[in-house]
């Protein structure tokens, strides 16, 4: 086979994945890559007879292994020969059942991961993960975290598929009418989720965010509404059909580009940041054109300010699985933790005046993250689902 792509690249990604250091994009790719093989024809590769030889061989090897393991331990009961054979026999039984069940149920997802054990300290809080619910046009609600990979729902104009951990995709069905149906995706505290829209545009939503969108776009434009929270958009190019994101009375019009919108109720401004391409921001007729690297900030009073050369790494840190603090005060830091760890914060005594700068992985437990923030002026403790901040 000619080697065009460097296989070492794949090995590196898998290695990162195994060590838990992969970004969301990397983990998404690795899982999708592994799942790809399930699409290929599972032609029965062995005859009945070959299977028998194979399973007998494996059974023998497993028995030998177990015997060896047990000889190095002092566990009297298990040393009895009959016990070992009985155990080995039951394992073989399980192997068979396991493979039968597996063959019958090929497409479903993997939930637990035995590779990532890890003890959790008492009174610790796990980081957020891929959590969301989807509300269909008929009002039914699907929980995406527990859904298996594969077809989730058929609607008039699209099929919804769960294609990996934390990602769903809309496959458009050729239109058979003019009815427009809307779905919405809602991300709870401590969640995030990705959607590939029928036009191929990708949206990654952060915690406490929701978006309403049609299951198929019409001929003129592609309109979605970010009803709350934060989202990163990678809009598929289609010059004839502008992509419009509505955020309250603000409209953001794009032709094909990458940008991030943050619109949390408890943050003072709505921030729209352009990473690639160009976008047009329209608020009650006032139109602003953004260039890459610019950020438009709209405060509660409706005033718009455009900043140049904002730190793009900071804006997309959440998408890359990071918290990114830069001269942020404790309240700004805690607002981010509240959303991701699903906690509340209690300030006892004077609010510490320290500021925080640095990047931290989002996938660590709360206690580990707090260890990194605490210092002689800031004391942090976890009580149930509450973090207490003391000077």
């Amino acid at each position, binding site marked *: 086979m000619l080697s065009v792509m460097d296989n070492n690249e*794949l090995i590196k990604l898998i290695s990162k994945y195994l060590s838990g250091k992969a*970004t969301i994009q990397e983990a998404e790719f690795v899982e*999708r890559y592994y799942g*790809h093989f399930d699409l290929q024809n599972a032609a029965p590769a062995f005859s009945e007879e070959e299977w028998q030889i194979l399973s007998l061989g494996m059974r023998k090897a497993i028995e030998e292994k177990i015997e060896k393991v047990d000889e190095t331990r002092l566990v009297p009961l298990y040393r009895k020969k009959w016990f070992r054979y009985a155990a080995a026999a039951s394992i073989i039984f399980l192997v068979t059942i396991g493979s039968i069940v597996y*063959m019958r149920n090929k497409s479903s997802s993997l939930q*637990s991961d035995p590779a990532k054990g890890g003890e959790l300290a008492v009174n610790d809080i796990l980081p957020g993960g891929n959590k969301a619910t989807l509300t269909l046009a008929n009002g039914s609600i699907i929980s995406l975290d527990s859904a298996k990979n594969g077809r989730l729902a058929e609607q008039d104009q699209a099929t919804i598929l769960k294609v990996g951990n934390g990602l769903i995709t809309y496959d458009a069905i050729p239109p058979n009418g003019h009815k427009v149906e809307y779905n919405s995706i809602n991300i709870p505290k401590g969640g995030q989720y990705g959607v590939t829209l029928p036009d191929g545009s990708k949206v990654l939503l952060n915690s406490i965010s929701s978006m309403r969108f049609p299951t198929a776009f019409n001929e003129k434009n592609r309109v979605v509404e970010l009803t709350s929270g934060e989202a990163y958009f990678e809009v598929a190019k289609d010059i004839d059909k502008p992509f419009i994101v509505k955020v309250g009375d603000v409209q953001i019009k794009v032709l094909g580009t990458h940008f991030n919108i943050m619109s949390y109720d408890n943050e003072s401004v709505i921030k729209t940041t352009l990473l690639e391409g160009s976008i047009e921001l329209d608020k009650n007729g006032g139109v602003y054109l953004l260039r890459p690297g610019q950020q438009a900030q709209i405060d509660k009073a409706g005033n718009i300010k455009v900043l140049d050369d904002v730190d793009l790494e900071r804006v997309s840190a959440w998408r890359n699985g990071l918290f990114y603090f830069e001269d942020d005060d404790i309240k700004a830091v805690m607002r981010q933790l509240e959303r991701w760890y699903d906690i509340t914060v209690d300030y006892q005594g004077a609010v510490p005046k320290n500021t925080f700068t640095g990047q931290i992985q989002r996938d660590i437990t709360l206690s580990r993250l707090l260890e990194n923030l605490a210092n002689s002026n800031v004391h942090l403790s976890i009580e149930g689902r509450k973090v207490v901040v003391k000077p």
Partner: protein
Amino acid sequence: MFMSAYQRLKDVDQCKDIIQDIWADIWVRRGSVEIQNLRSYLLSAVRFQVFKMIERGQDSPTFFAPFQQMAFTGTGADGSVMEKELAALFRSWLNTLPEKRREIFILHFANKLSVKEIAERLNISTKTVQNQLGTAVSDLRSRLAGILLQFV
């Protein structure tokens, strides 16, 4: 379990090792391991072992084949289900790359520009482009021809 590994490795001995290791490991940890869903536990154990095997540098042409193919699927817009998935896989992989590298890869594989054309367009040296593309060489077309022959 065996087929799940075999589908990815197509090597009986490697798969046998994987299955045997998993069961021996469960036996060793029989006191401490708590399994809620046996099927998904076993399948993710297989996944973990397959990844481990690849990480250790085991040669497995089957496992790497889609990685090699995915760059040549174009947009996948009008292909088969398989081609679409390969194209999606490629896009998903592009997303893992740093900005500059991604741009070079897209120009090379999707827009089919040569190393020289990319260097001119981005105003960087051909050497840089070649380094970024890794083992891919400048004459994409001859490679493409070779690959097409193998899959016809």
